[in-house]
């Protein structure tokens, strides 16, 4: 999960001046290849995370090909550059489906692009494991889309588990008034209620907010044990700023997006200490095949994989597995197989609801400790023990 949404709001997307993208082809082995199409944000302001995604697909294809391909045929990735622009993505998927006639589809990143291409993909009756976290497309609206990334409402579930395990009872929720944080906040509230905690404060703030002092003071008046921000990076930093400056104390501070970015620690320095965040993936995870994945990825691309790479890698692997089991490229059969798939991936347990919503993947809790991110929850994945309660500022 990046902050693309956030970027789009403040900076501008290239909307009018489309480009002639050049297809980039992966390595092909012998035999007529199975061609897997996608668009990737390869250039422009949003390209940094998406290059990881492409590398994830490429590594998965290379591994599959090394193991003899799928249905005995090599996998070939056909990737075009969508520039982070939904309208370009639509054109590219049109081209992939109707003029390139690819055999399989995988997803662009992230939710806005997925949403843009969803109708087209559905109309073409092609299965697409999708990297869009919002749950709306997977509730029957687009039956050929299956969710290959953690669903938004589950993003912060482990944080609540952690808080509940410590006996914390009250939660204050600060929510950016945009869709992803709102959907997230609903999930947090439901989980908290289920765990016997109560949400004593919940307020939505506009995405343009820069000064959080009054909001934080208002939340503090309810004396919550836990202050949770359903946020992006800038707001998470702003809220920590305000809490520290106003000397607002709570036993635990956690944010959805923010602490996961290295800039959070750099920008806040000592104030970042002890703050919790969530991530979908961490290189140290003890998940199925992760050690090999990290090693291969680092060897091939010269840097450790991030979660974009991991979810993309896992989604192609899962798709290929379904094709292999079905024994053909019949999209309806592949879809049925996928909906029944339960498997362990580098990201975690993959499982779907009957309409294709991701019910297996969850997230992992990290904490800033001594200027570093440590994975602290769930316990069996921890790289360091949890440090709680949060010390006075």
């Amino acid at each position, binding site marked *: 999960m990046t902050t693309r949404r956030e970027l*789009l709001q403040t900076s501008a997307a290239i909307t009018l001046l489309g480009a002639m993208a050049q297809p980039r082809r992966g390595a092909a082995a012998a035999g007529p290849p199975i061609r897997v199409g996608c668009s990737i944000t390869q250039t*422009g302001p949003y390209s940094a995370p998406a290059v990881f995604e492409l590398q994830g697909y490429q590594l998965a294809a290379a591994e599959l090909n090394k193991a003899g391909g799928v249905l005995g045929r090599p996998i070939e990735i056909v990737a075009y550059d969508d520039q982070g622009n939904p309208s370009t993505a639509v054109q590219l998927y049109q081209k992939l489906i109707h003029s390139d006639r690819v055999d399989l589809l995988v997803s662009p990143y992230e939710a806005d692009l997925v*949403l843009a291409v969803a*109708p087209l993909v559905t109309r073409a009756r092609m299965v697409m494991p999708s990297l869009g976290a919002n749950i709306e497309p997977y509730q029957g609206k687009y039956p050929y889309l299956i969710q290959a990334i953690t669903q938004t409402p589950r993003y912060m579930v482990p944080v609540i588990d952690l808080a509940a395990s410590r006996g914390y009872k009250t939660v204050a929720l600060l929510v950016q008034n945009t869709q992803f944080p709102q959907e997230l906040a609903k999930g947090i509230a439901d989980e908290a209620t289920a765990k016997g905690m109560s949400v004593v404060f919940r307020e939505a703030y506009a995405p343009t907010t820069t000064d959080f002092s009054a909001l934080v003071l208002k939340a503090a008046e309810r004396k919550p044990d836990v202050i949770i921000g359903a946020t992006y990076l800038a707001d998470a930093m702003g809220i920590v700023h305000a809490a520290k400056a106003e000397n607002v104390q709570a036993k635990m501070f956690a944010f959805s997006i923010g602490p996961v970015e290295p800039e959070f620690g750099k920008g806040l320095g000592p104030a970042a200490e002890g703050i919790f965040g969530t991530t979908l993936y961490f290189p140290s995870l003890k998940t199925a095949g992760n050690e090999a994945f990290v090693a291969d990825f680092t060897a091939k691309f010269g840097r450790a994989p991030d979660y974009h790479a991991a979810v993309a890698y896992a989604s192609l692997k899962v798709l290929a597995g379904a094709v292999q089991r079905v024994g053909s490229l019949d999209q309806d059969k592949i879809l049925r197989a996928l909906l029944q798939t339960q498997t362990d991936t580098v990201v975690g347990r993959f499982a779907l609801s009957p309409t294709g919503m991701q019910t297996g993947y969850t997230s992992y809790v990290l904490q800033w400790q001594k200027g570093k991110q440590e994975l602290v929850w769930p316990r069996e994945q921890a790289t360091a023990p949890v440090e709680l309660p949060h010390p006075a500022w």
Partner: protein
Amino acid sequence: MSAARAARPRFLSDRAQFALQAALLGVLAASGLLIAGQGNGYAAQLVFNVALSVLLATGWNVIGGMTGYVSFGQVSFFGLGAYAAAIGVLHLALPWPIAALLATAAATSLAVPLGLIMLRLNGIFFALGMFGLARILQIAANGLNITGGPMGTTVPAAEGPAFPAAVTVVIAAAAAGVVAALMRTRLGLRLMAIRDDPVAAEAAGVNVWLAKVAAFCIGAGFAAIGGALYVWNIGYLDPSSAFAGTIELQTVLMVLAGGIGTVWGPVGGGILMSLLGTVLWARFPMEQQIVLGALTMLIAVALPGGLMSLLPRRGWMARPPIWGPPREASEGTLLPAVRVAVADTPGPVLVCRNLGKRFGGVAAVDGVDLEVAPGEVLAVIGPNGAGKSTLFNLLSGFAVPSTGEVEFAGCKIANIRPYVLARRGVARTFQTSRLFPTLSVWENVLLAAISRHRRKAHAVAAATELLERMGLREDWARLPQGLPPGRRRLLEIARALALEPSVLLLDEAMAGMTGPEIAQVHQVLRAAAARGCAIVAIEHVLPAIAPLAARVQVLDFGRTIAEGAPAEVLHDPTVIAAYLGTDMAGTEFAHA
């Protein structure tokens, strides 16, 4: 050199010029259609992008270029059109063509109240106010749940870009055609006059307010169609792409690059810049925005007129003269220069009593009484700072008096807008000449004539006749700045007379004129007076107007200090003292 060229008979008739331009537009549109027809590939998408750029640039140019209200938030209407169309298709289950038309209508009607508010602003304030408006609308769209809030929504779209590209090409070409035609209408002429000088336009009888709101709505309409077409093509809509500042930047850049305020500027700029942007993105995706920004700076500094300014001003790509050229004088049917109803009113046509105007603590005009009868010529003289020009502003409705009142033809003029007064027959000139610099001599006069005449033929005939009488017909195609100062003054008087006024207010109209020019003015004014036009002429010194004036009123420090026949007033010691102090009495007036 330019004088010689301008005076030469035109190489092409304006009709031929128009036909050539239409042919070029047709060729461009046909090639667009041809490429779009090749299939659903990138070429079709590119044609769509180019055509959409041309459409948006053309719409922006109506308000930003023709009318001079530069907007940094025209994308507001693009977004409104996009949203309205999407809602029509999604929630009212309308077919696309109807949804697009309704969306355009909705955005255009919304432009009326928005225009009424935003067009109170000028210059930078308007530009930035519009920017703020786009941001407010984006925030509102973020909160609009039926279109998915900030996440956006998918909308059933066209199958591939070929058909939308073709439709957009046709609409963009039509838009350019509409603007070309608009530039040859009353509204177009008025808009260009407002861009050049809103005050002078008002004085020439232009309802500035209405005209610019109309331009705002037309520009908004084009942007809204663009928004609807955009959604139809891509089938996806979210607030940050519907109200993207980048669209605004690119639109402004295209218009500037091509040539602001021209028909072909947005077309050429739209085509060139969208192709350039595509090439730039392909080669330098990360640097594209820097290059575009630098290009904007370069154009702002080095080529403010855009590519069109490199073409000859009277070439076939230029704007054809509005309703011109003037025919030979003999063809014109002469019209009565004075409203009969007013001329028949007995007594003075313009009266003011105890008229006063204070600025802060200073009384610029202080209890002046004045009246003038039909056919009478009244000279108002006074030293610098005597309050003469303020008096004219009060008489012509440009300023509201602090005390007293003005009656014109028996009606009080309080709360009557200047353009209404101008149309009813109060015409004025300005102390420093306020001609419309980008309108030709002919169009300067025609602008006032269309305020008086509903029928085109009458307006053309009246304007032709005035040019003839002023000796300006040869110069009809030139721009005002190409005329010598005295002839510019003549032109300004011609413009005022084109309103066929019952009262003509001349503010130092003969300053800087040569002897023969003054004689010419006298002849014209005598003719006007003979037909019943009352003339009030401000002069700094008397000689220019004395031969015509039956009466002279002398102002100093906002008060009337003397009044009477020219000869009496000139020997009044108060007057002499006011002008010269007591020592040098009379020297300046000796030759009068």
